[in-house]
């Protein structure tokens, strides 16, 4: 099977520091893939290279065979890659609905002046966008707070709103940066269901960074492990759990002696 997203020896150097070195991955369409590692291992740097926020020092990113390395973030999004952020970044002054509508802008066909001048096709498109945005809010269970200011929503709702906003850009590949952060076990259980649900409902391929091992092992089909920027292991969850290198990276050498 052809990979939907392929990273070819991505390397990111900041001055003398090598944040990520030779990260390679091939992600099959429809897969849910995890990216784990201790703090500062370079996970978010990988995200930033894939989504165009950083231009990799070396290496390539391919989406469906097309080289998207070095494209600016908005062009990467247009190509079909959406993301969420580790520390939630919503448009705080806008309502939940408005946040999702901003996500739809990248697929908008009409120009700015058309809607301002009451051009009927543009008005119809805005009405369609509104309906679609409400559907997306419904899909993440936020219909009742559509008119609420985004910054006033509770934490869990903000996380889901960020996902709804990412879905609004009609992505093929979705990157989630620590979606379970700050969630209790019950909530992370629901999150796993939710991730599988959106994968199927929106025919997505998902790459997620996560520290909650229950979530990672529960939902991911394939896992990459980074430590100090180097890929130290990859494979299905069961293999990763028993991989001595991974245990060492997470718990230190002593833990391995006890194991």
């Amino acid at each position, binding site marked *: 099977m052809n990979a939907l997203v392929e990273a070819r020896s991505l390397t990111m150097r900041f001055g003398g520091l090598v944040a990520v070195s030779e990260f390679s991955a091939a992600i099959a369409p429809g897969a849910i893939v995890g990216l784990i590692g201790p703090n500062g291992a370079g996970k978010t740097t990988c995200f930033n290279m894939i*989504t165009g*926020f950083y231009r990799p020092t070396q290496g390539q990113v391919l989406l469906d065979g097309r080289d998207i390395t070095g494209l*600016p*973030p*908005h062009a990467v*999004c*247009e190509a079909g890659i*959406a*993301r969420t*952020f580790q520390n939630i*970044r*919503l*448009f*705080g*002054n*806008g309502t939940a609905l*408005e*946040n999702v*509508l*901003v*996500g*739809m*802008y*990248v697929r*908008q066909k009409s120009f*700015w002046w058309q*809607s*301002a*001048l*009451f051009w009927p096709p*543009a008005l119809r498109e*805005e009405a369609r*966008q509104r309906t679609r945005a409400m559907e997306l809010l419904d899909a993440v269970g936020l219909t009742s707070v559509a008119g609420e200011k985004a910054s006033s929503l509770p934490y869990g709702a903000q996380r889901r709103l960020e996902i709804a*906003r*990412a879905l*609004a*850009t009609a992505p093929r590949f979705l990157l989630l940066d620590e979606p379970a952060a700050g969630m209790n076990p019950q909530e992370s259980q629901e999150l796993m269901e939710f991730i599988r649900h959106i994968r199927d409902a929106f025919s997505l391929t998902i790459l997620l960074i996560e520290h909650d091992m229950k979530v990672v092992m529960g939902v991911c089909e394939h896992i990459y492990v980074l430590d100090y920027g180097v890929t130290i292991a990859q494979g299905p969850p069961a293999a990763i759990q028993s991989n001595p290198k991974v245990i060492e990276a997470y718990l230190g050498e002593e833990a391995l002696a006890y194991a």
Partner: protein
Amino acid sequence: MKRYHVFALNFMLVGVLAALLVCAQRFLDGYSIQILNLVAINILLALSLNLIYGFTGMFSLGHAGFMAIGAYVCAILILSPDQKAMLFLLEPAYPWIESAHAPFVVAVFAGGLAAAAMAAVVGFPLLRLGDDYLGIATLGFAEIVRVVANNVPRITNGALGFKGIPAYANLWWNYGWCLLALVLIVRILRSNTGRCFKAIRDDEVAARAMGVNVFRLKLLSFSLGAFFAGVGGGLLASLLTTIDPKMFLFVLTFNVLMIVVMGGLGSVTGSVIAGAAVTIILEWLRFVEDPITLGSVTLPGIPGMRMVVFSLLLIAVILFRREGLMGTREISWEGIAAWLRQRRKA
């Protein structure tokens, strides 16, 4: 509330405004009418700066520059060739400057277009700068415009400027342009493009990740704001009938900025209310510049005193109501209707 209700109410509001203007023209003296004219132009200018700063989050201090461009283009186009032949005392004007002539509406529009084109040109390098740096750079731009105006006598008549510009800018033109700007800006802000402007203001990184071409939209907002600043400059030139480079000092930008901050960054209705209030208060405050007798003490009149009083007012606003009169809130028909319903229930 149905859409045609809102439309009907807006239509009525415009009707009421027109009736008031008719009354004003018939019953008010020239001085009061002049103030009403300034109200319209200040609202227009405040709206244009609010679009750039309040809604898109670009701290621009270049408004006087865009106004100057609009004012000069408009003045050159509405002055007749004969007038221009007499005006250019230092050096004769270029033939194409002298022969250029257009009706008022075209001249104002051209002034706006020239300002917008200039905004697109300077915005290209400048809008990559963030916050404070953009403020400094645009401030520099406005100064450059003024210095250039001083030093190309064959186009701008140098430091002498223009006198006797035809006074076409009556209440109807000023309020007409103001209304046009209001409607267009509100329409854009309510469209998805406007939502993206606000998204850029709230979180530029997230906007980029969501596929918003931040640079292009910033350039659009900047140019649109500059267009209306140019329109305002053109109207002002015709209203005051004289312009010279000294008129477009930083103080002019500061006045507009003051209105925007007082009304609320990111509030259209705030700009409208503050635009009217500030203009009228500034005129009304002229009495503090007259000699005042308090019992046996006589204070001599101090020119510029009203700006001191006004600055104190501004400080009070910043201290006690930092977000301005309206913050980012708006007064809308829907809002009024909801408020009335609530009152009826209570």
